[in-house]
C-alpha cells in the first residue's frame, strides 16, 4: 500500500467510531500492541524528547526501503506512533521524503501534530522525513 492508501485506510477505520471514548480506546490498544522497539535501540541517540513525552525511533534501510520501529513512554502517543510507523515504514526514501501526513488531523488528533504541544510525535515525524530526504539525496 502507498502512504496515501495507508492513511486513507486508517481514516476509514476511524470513521466507524461514534464517540471519542471508542476512538481513544482503539488508539490506546494500538499503543499497547505496538511491538516494542528492540531494547538495544532504546538508547539516548534514538530518543526524541518532547516537552511531555519521550519517543524512541529506530530506522533501518533495506532493499531501497526504510523500516521504522518506535516506542513512547506515553500510551496515546505510542498509539499514534504506531500508526505513523504503519504509514511510513517499508516505503521508499523518496516517498517518505515527500509524504504529507494528513491522517492525524483527519481522525481528530490534530493537536498531537501542532507546534503548540511541542511533543515528541511531531519531532519524530520530522526525523522520519529527514531519513527519507537524506537517503533520497544519496540517490538510494
Amino acid at each position, binding site marked *: 500500500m502507498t502512504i496515501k492508501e495507508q492513511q486513507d485506510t486508517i481514516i476509514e477505520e476511524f470513521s466507524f467510531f461514534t464517540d471519542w471514548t471508542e476512538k481513544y480506546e482503539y488508539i490506546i490498544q494500538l499503543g499497547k500492541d505496538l511491538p516494542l522497539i528492540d531494547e538495544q535501540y532504546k538508547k539516548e541517540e534514538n530518543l526524541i524528547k518532547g516537552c511531555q*513525552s519521550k519517543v524512541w525511533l529506530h530506522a533501518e534501510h533495506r532493499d531501497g526501503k526504510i523500516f521504522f520501529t518506535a516506542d513512547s513512554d506515553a500510551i496515546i*502517543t505510542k498509539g499514534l506512533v504506531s500508526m505513523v510507523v504503519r504509514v511510513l515504514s517499508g516505503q521508499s526514501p523518496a516517498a517518505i521524503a515527500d509524504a504529507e501526513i494528513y491522517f492525524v488531523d483527519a481522525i481528530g488528533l490534530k493537536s498531537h501534530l501542532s507546534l503548540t504541544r511541542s511533543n515528541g510525535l511531531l519531532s519524530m515525524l520530522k526525523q522520519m522525513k529527514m531519513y527519507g530526504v537524506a537517503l533520497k539525496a544519496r540517490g538510494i
Partner: protein
Amino acid sequence: MTNSEPITDSVLDIEKIRKDFPILQTKVYGKPLIYLDNAATTQKPRTVLQSLETYYTQYNSNVHRGVHFLSQQATEAYEEARKKIAAYINARFDHEIIFTKGTTNGINLVASSFGKKFLKAGDEVLISAMEHHSNIVPWQLICEEKGATLKVIPINEQGELKMDAFDELLNSKVKIVAVTYVSNSLGTVNPVFEMIQKAHALNIPVLIDGAQAIQHIPIDIQQLDADFFAFSGHKIYGPTGVGVLYGKEKWLNEMPPYEGGGDMIKNVTFAKTTYNELPFKFEAGTPDISGGIALGAAIDYVQQIGAATIQQAEEEVVAYAFDRLSAISSLRFIGDAKHRSGAISFLVGNIHPFDLGEILDKQSIAVRTGHHCTQPLMDFFHIPGTVRASFAFYNTKAEVDELVKGIEKAKRMLE
C-alpha cells in the same frame, strides 16, 4: 464521601461568584468547562474586562508627562492602581510597587540589578530545590556572570524544605536568598516568615517568589518583612502581561536601573544620564497602562470578596479534593506537605501524566501535566512529570467530583 451527599460550598455564594466569570459559563467539547489549571493562569471577572474596555474606549493615552486631559486621566488611573496594590499588600510606600511584565520579569530585574551591585566572585545565592525555572535561571545567569555560586536548599520526600539544611547553608557568603512562598508543583507552603527572620539576623535580604501565594494567602508585606516580593497579574485574576515587583525602598534606591529608556530618567545628555526617582527608575518605556489599571480592578474584586474568605473557601475545596482523590486506588500524591495551598500534584499507577491529562481534557476537565517548569524537582522525585489540579475560589466540590469521575474513567481506559 460519595457523589450523592449534599454538596455545600459554605463560605462563599459560589454560584453567584461564578457568574462574575464569563468563561466559567462556556463549554468545551459540548460539556461545561471544568477549569482546574489555575496555577497556570486564573480566569478574569467581568469587572476586569470592563476596566479594559472603559480604558480603551474612554481614556486611552500615554501616561506621565502628558498635559492633555486623557493623559492625565490615564496617569491618574494607572497610579491609582499602584496605590491599590500597595495598600493590598500593605507596602509602606506606593513607590515600592514596581510594575513589571510578570513574576519572571520581576525576578530577573532583581537578579540582574541586585546582582550587578552586590554579587562578586565567591559569593553565594541561596534558592531551593522546589523553585520554578523563573526563580532558578535568572540566578544561574547572574552567578555565572559574577563568578558566584548557586546553592540549593534540599527538600524531604514530603516536598518540604529541610530547615536544618537551610540553617547550615545560611552563612555570611550568601548575599541573597530567593525562595518561593508556595510551590506551584507541590502546593507546599514554605516557612518564609522564619526564613526571612533567620536571613535578616545575618543581614541577608530575601526575595519571595509570590507567584502562587498572592492569590491564595493574605499578604502583609511589612509583617512578612520580605525585601523583594514578585508576582504576576494573570495569576490573581488580572490580565496577562503585567505583574508587580515589591521592593523595599532602601534596596531599590541602592540598586542600579535595570532597563534604560523613556520615563526612567530625570535627565539625559550623551555625557551623563541621571535616573528618575522610584518607582519610575525601574519602569523604562511606555508601561502596560491598560494592564496595570485592569490589575487594579482585579485587586478591587479580590478585596471585595476578601483575601481571608478566599483562603478559607479554597482550603475547603482543596481539602475536599485531597480527600476524594485519596480514595482513588493507585493514586499517589507528589508532595505531601503539612502546610499547603492551591495545587495538588499526583500520579495514577503507571499511567503517564500526559495520557491522563489528555483523557481528562476530552471530558472537558482542564488540568496541567508535565514538569510545571520545575524540572529539578521532578528529577528529585525521579518522575517525568505530574498531573496537577489547581484550584481557585470559584471551583466547586461538584467540579472535584467530576475530576474524580474523570480520573476513574481514564484509569479504566489507560490501565
